[in-house]
């Protein structure tokens, strides 16, 4: 990357590809990696298709280069195309991948997870984070023979109907009839909810901290998780930690461990395989037989290549002490961004854990200023988002951070100029 002032990018080939996509794919690019849910504001500031990726960077189909702070929305934890992980995947691929019976590589990974994740006595594999949150709720309901599930307001646990809301198209009222909601960080509200629905609540499901979109992310208050654990024990409620987003970046022993408790079930995906498609639910001994009793499987859930990639990923994360690295890098980056904003008379708020920092320009409450700044960054080669927490990967260097700060400074100048 050059160290001089950047020329804002153009996206001719992205637009051409999107026009093709719209003819054959509903919405062109549906979901969070598309322009609507991805909050490409304005849409013209963003590319739509990537061509290649390496380390902390990807290049779009017009050849524009980006320092990527979304990391594929989390899976890229070591760097795109990490040579150690890719070599492990290639070795396994040369042997087998999807076969009629599974590879013992699955057992190797389960053993590694049980050894690594503090609360894990077993592991069950699937493909996406939502597979594991659904499995966790089914397990809790089967174990307790109760219907209701308590969510934290502002939650996201995937896109299965039970995770959505009354007003979402295609979701029936019955799908969400047993969902209850409490505010984040409010043990008293949770206790009141448990008392009001005594004997009816199967599970409490939450991310380790509140990393909701469009709002400053909030860490757990002192004693919050201990209070939650106590209440779940008192009321026989299964405590599900949705560690899909934060997992492997805060604490390799699990984010429940990071915040001083043991969850009953922990959901993992995203960073578990550095981009190789895999998810896992881990759990405590008491729930082993329950989860074994469920009918829950998928065509690709025992493919061996992602298992091998995951073993290599977790091993490499341990060697690097990646959570400590992410904390250092994240603090270095966010501190620099906040200072750069202040240099232009702007107030940037960085919240959440440094490994998954969330940014917001606090100078207006509409986020329009923030959206302009993020768009200026993207058009100059730094991929931030205006709505979502970010992700770090271990290949990010101090040079990358310095270049990020240069581009961010240019973008702040563009915004401050009006």
């Amino acid at each position, binding site marked *: 990357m050059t160290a001089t002032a950047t020329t804002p990018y153009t996206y001719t080939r992205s637009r051409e590809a999107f026009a093709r996509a*719209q003819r054959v794919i509903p919405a062109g690019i549906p979901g969070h990696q598309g322009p609507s849910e991805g909050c490409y504001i*304005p849409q013209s500031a963003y590319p739509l298709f990537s061509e290649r990726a390496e380390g902390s960077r990807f290049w779009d189909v017009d050849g524009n280069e980006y320092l990527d702070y979304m990391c594929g929305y989390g899976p890229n934890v070591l760097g795109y195309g990490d040579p150690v992980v890719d070599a492990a995947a290639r070795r396994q691929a040369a042997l087998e991948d999807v076969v009629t019976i599974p590879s013992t590589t699955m057992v190797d990974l389960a053993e590694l997870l049980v050894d690594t994740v503090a609360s894990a006595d077993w592991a069950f594999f699937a493909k996406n984070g939502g597979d594991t949150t659904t499995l966790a709720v089914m397990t809790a309901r089967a174990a307790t023979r109760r219907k209701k599930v308590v969510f934290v307001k502002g939650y996201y646990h995937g896109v299965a109907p039970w995770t959505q809301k009354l*007003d979402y198209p295609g979701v029936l009222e019955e799908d969400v009839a047993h969902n209850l909601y409490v505010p984040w960080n409010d043990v008293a509200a949770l206790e009141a909810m448990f008392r009001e629905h005594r004997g009816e609540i199967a599970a409490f499901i939450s991310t380790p901290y509140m990393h909701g979109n469009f709002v400053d992310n909030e860490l757990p208050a002192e004693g919050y998780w201990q209070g939650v654990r106590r209440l779940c024990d008192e009321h026989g409620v299964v405590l599900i930690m949705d560690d899909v987003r934060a997992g492997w970046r805060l604490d390799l022993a699990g984010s429940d461990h990071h915040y001083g408790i043991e969850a009953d079930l922990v959901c993992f995906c995203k960073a578990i395989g550095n981009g190789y498609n895999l998810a896992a639910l881990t759990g405590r001994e008491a729930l082993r037989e329950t989860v074994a009793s469920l009918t829950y499987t998928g065509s690709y859930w025992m493919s061996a290549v992602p298992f091998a990639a995951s073993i290599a990923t977790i091993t490499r994360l341990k060697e690097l002490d990646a959570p400590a690295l992410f904390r250092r890098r994240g603090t270095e980056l966010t501190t620099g961004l906040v200072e750069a904003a202040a240099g232009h008379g702007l107030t940037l708020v960085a919240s959440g854990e440094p490994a998954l920092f969330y940014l917001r320009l606090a100078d207006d409450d509409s986020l329009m200023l923030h959206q302009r700044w993020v768009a200026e960054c993207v058009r100059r080669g730094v991929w931030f988002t205006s709505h979502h927490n970010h992700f770090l990967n271990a290949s990010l260097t101090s040079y990358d951070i310095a270049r990020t700060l240069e581009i961010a400074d240019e973008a702040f100048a563009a915004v401050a100029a009006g």
Partner: protein
Amino acid sequence: MLTDTDPRVLAHINLFAVLGALPSLAEHAPEARPLLAAVDRPTTVRFRVRGLPDRALTFDRDGIAEGAHGERTVTLVLRSPAHLNAMIDGAAQPVPLARPAGLRFLTQVFAPLADLLGRYLRPSEEDLADAAFSEASAVITLHVAVAAIAQVANTDRSGRFSAGLIPDGQIALEVGDSLDLRLHARDHALTFDPAPASSPARAALTFRDLDVAGDVLAGRASALACLGDGSMAMRGFIPMIDNVSRILDRVGHYLGEQP
């Protein structure tokens, strides 16, 4: 997603959004002017629907306005929300309380204007081929849609759920640089304010032009696809737009074609 609809919510939409579009019709439809020219003196039409708030519109030669400030009052009595809904569908008649001149106003001015409104809200292919008609139809439809969003947000079970997630502030629904219709959110209730915007919105959903607005509101184009290709855009505090969009979907359950 609720799979059923509530006749009382539909009646709110009909009373406040559909009939509420009569002032916009008078402003944008050239055919309304000769009809209004027949108004001999300002006349208030009061809708009295059991179970709903009273509603009044006043007609004079210059146009149609909210409120009861006419020199003559005609009251249309409807025994239930369902009766109002049937009247809007053309399947029932209200009970008019009026003197002979008032009855003449109903037959010679009000009824033709109501028919004209129906034509602009459900235009034929032939009508849409006329650029001026198509543009006016889109403007009036947009007024109905935005007003209906407020009604659904405040009275429908799904709408109230969505509105419960909308923080305070103004939401703009814009068409290019020419139209800026505002919803005001306060304490999770929405109000449609047809007056010109006087302060910045906290969130905005923008249609590139009236053609796009008309296509999206009529269900001929997908809002998601339009956001993707840039013919629609959003900015600001997106949860406000997201939840207004969900309410707009719900409006479609009431006003759109049934599957």
